[in-house]
């Protein structure tokens, strides 16, 4: 019970205060669109140099945990995912808020985040060396198939026409090729403009495609942004716990998926919550209510989302390969503090490791009271603030948030352009999610494909390279399943004599 002594060490009043401060400021930073966990952590790093190592680690973990959770506020209340991993939270969170259940959605997200976070930290503590091997068994080819699998989720996630989903994804994938290519070094689709040289930044695209359309429609009518019920209902904790208890299997499954998928560096964090979401939907009896404000959708994505914190640290600490950008910053800070990754993790470095894990654990527990409190406040301010103030405030956040990502005015213009394009496309039945999915998965698919091709050419067996490995075959099978499952389900439904006239011919191209 070495951990316990470290946990008790972590519980000194000073450290507890720092953890509280870290979680609270993390939540606030994460809740602002554009202000990411990466930035929160990066700003804090120099401050931690002056602290005792334990305090520094606890505070870094706390601010990271808080920021990942805080991202759900903007997803639920203004339909803007702060990070790619919060995309799926908008699917059900925003419809819930629209119909007046925003307070319930925030409470659910808090409960799910705590549950998911605890599962992730537990996995980090007990299974880290074992699970880290997962990260190594994924080569370029496996990443390529994983990206393809992520793209097939479109057919499960797109409402309406699947073909439109594919066109949207194609658009997103083409957007992702803009700029200097990693493999080949070409400068592509910049049309001679230096503004596009650095490519389209994912988070600014998220803000543009999700938040700007909301703003555009917000100014068009005098109606309130969210529906408000007259009666006061507090934080609706009892109701939230009820939903969580009903969805306990969902929570556990989503948290496990989140932990394991997040181990894959680079790709994991962004698709973990999407996979959990589509799994939750597949398993649910009332699948059609997903995307229209089903509480289980929020539970699934948020549990997965916060499980990625623990999961992402597994390759970071065991292999020295950071899973996500904030992991990279924290690893840098750990290196500066004298920490070395590798087998000494739980021996020579045990004091640093255990303190850090204990800090994450503490921070996740603190999410519950702090999250409910700050969430209540965020919800209240969104519904009480008059529209004439709400619009400029959100607009202000999108502009400053996008600017701050890489200190670039060009990114603000790109964000705005994508916003207008996104609004137009949305009007014609093209949803933003396939576009964003294409944008995120494009580089992973492309690099995986070209690297796999080069590897296959070197060994003289391109086909075996792509279709040889057991992991590749499993992912291919899953992709095929996710494309055809909705069709099969529909056919079965029709055989029961129920024809709703929806698009049964729309197979994937």
């Amino acid at each position: 019970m070495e951990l316990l002594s470290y946990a008790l060490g972590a519980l000194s009043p000073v450290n507890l205060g720092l953890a509280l401060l870290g979680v609270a400021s993390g939540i606030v930073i994460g809740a602002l669109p554009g202000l990411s966990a990466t930035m929160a952590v990066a700003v804090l790093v120099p401050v931690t140099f002056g602290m005792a190592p334990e305090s520094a680690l606890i505070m870094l973990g706390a601010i990271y945990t808080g920021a990942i959770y805080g991202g759900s506020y903007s997803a639920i209340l203004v339909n803007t995912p702060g990070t790619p991993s919060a995309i799926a939270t908008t699917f059900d969170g925003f419809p819930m808020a629209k119909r007046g259940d925003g307070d319930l959605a925030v409470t659910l997200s808090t409960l799910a985040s705590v549950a998911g976070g605890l599962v992730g930290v537990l996995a980090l503590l007990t299974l880290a060396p074992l699970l880290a091997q997962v990260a190594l068994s994924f080569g370029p080819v496996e990443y390529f198939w994983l990206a393809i699998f992520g793209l097939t989720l479109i057919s499960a996630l797109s409402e309406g026409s699947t073909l439109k989903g594919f066109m949207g994804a194609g658009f997103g994938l083409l957007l992702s090729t803009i700029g200097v290519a990693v493999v080949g070094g070409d400068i592509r689709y910049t049309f001679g403009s230096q503004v596009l040289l650095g490519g389209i930044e994912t988070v600014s695209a998220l803000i543009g495609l999700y938040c700007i359309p909301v703003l555009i429609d917000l100014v068009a009518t005098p109606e309130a942004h969210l529906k408000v019920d007259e009666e006061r209902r507090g934080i609706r904790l009892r109701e939230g716990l009820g939903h969580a208890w009903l969805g306990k299997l969902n929570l556990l499954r989503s948290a496990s998926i989140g932990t394991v998928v997040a181990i894959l560096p680079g790709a994991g964090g962004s698709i973990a919550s999407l996979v959990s979401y589509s799994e939750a939907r597949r398993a649910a009896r009332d699948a059609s209510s997903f995307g229209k404000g089903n509480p289980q959708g929020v539970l699934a994505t948020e549990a997965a989302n916060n499980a990625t914190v623990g999961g992402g640290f597994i390759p970071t600490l065991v292999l020295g390969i950071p899973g996500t950008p904030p992991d990279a910053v924290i690893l840098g800070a750990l290196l500066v503090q004298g920490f070395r990754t590798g087998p000494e993790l739980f021996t020579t470095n045990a004091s640093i490791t255990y303190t850090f894990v204990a800090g994450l654990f503490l921070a996740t527990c603190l999410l519950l009271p702090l999250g409910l409190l700050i969430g209540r406040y965020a919800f209240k301010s969104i519904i009480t603030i008059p529209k004439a103030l709400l619009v400029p405030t959100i607009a202000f956040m999108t502009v400053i948030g996008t600017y701050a990502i890489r200190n670039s005015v060009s990114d603000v213009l790109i964000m705005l352009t994508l916003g207008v394009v996104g609004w137009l496309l949305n009007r014609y039945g093209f949803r933003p999610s396939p576009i964003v999915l294409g944008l995120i998965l494009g580089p992973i698919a492309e690099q995986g494909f070209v690297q796999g091709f080069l590897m296959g050419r070197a060994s003289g067996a391109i086909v075996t390279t792509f279709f040889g490995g057991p992991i590749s075959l499993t992912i291919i099978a899953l992709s095929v399943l996710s494309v055809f499952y909705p069709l099969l389900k529909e056919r079965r439904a029709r055989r029961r004599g129920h024809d709703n006239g929806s698009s049964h011919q729309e197979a994937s191209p």
Partner: protein
Amino acid sequence: MRVSRSIALVTGLGMTIAAGVTTLAVANEFPSKDVQYVIPFGPGGESDISARLQQKYFEEITGQQLVVQYMPGGGGAVGWSQLSDMPSDGYTIMGSNLPHIILKPMGKDVGFQTEDLNNVFYFHYSPDAILVRNDSPYETLDDLIQAAEEAPGTVTFSGSGTYSANDVANTRFQQLADVTTTYIPFKGTGAAVTALLGGQVQAEWGYTTVAANHQDKVRMLAVAAEERHPMFPEVPTFKELGYDMVGGAYRGMAVPDATPEGVQQELSDIFQQINQDPGFRQEMQDLGFVLMDVPLGEMDEFMAERRDMYEASARELGLID
């Protein structure tokens, strides 16, 4: 007419004196506030970690903070193309990396020219190295060269990026050893080392720093430094083995062109002073870096020398004619 001309003359003179005085004053008190240090890459990379280590000593020496920021995109091009628009008072400095700043603008327009960057100091480099897994059948560099000779193109190397330090190193190595290998570019050193550890490739073009980070899982066959790295006394240099390869990823800092000469010198001195600190030297060495001092005065010569070498490689890569 006369009057106005003399007024102009006096004003001009006054301004020159004023400017001179300000420069002097600035040079004496520099820095009197926090210095913004823009890294043209994302967080967590070697440029970031080096900057983080410098932060502490910068504050000790000057009493001011070194504030690290990131401006990633286009392999550094996004940051470097904006350097000339930044304030030229010396309070904004940007990380400068070789071979990137020379290779990137070669033959295409990436928004900046090598000459646009006013390098004030280069402080270290991570020497190129060939890494293999601990269980690799290649015990020496000769084993690997032999394998590449027997079946040209089958030995695969992972590395970070196209037209990058790793790509250049591989090209030069192929030339010197007269073999053909397959170079597979990855996004960043982290992804390249993952491919090596996962057994996707047989070897990696990396740096001593990578070996230092993954000591328990990888070993180096040769290092492209002048002498053996103190952390890895058993690993030979390429030179010892008969290949004239010394190089790697060099790091320094640049300022906008209009920055006063005195301030540039002051910055160069500060970072040189950081480089002398025994604590800093130890920390850098433990991470696998090799420290060096290229102050402002020697910068032109250093850059010209590196440029010649990279141009030769670039010609080989087909980047320029």
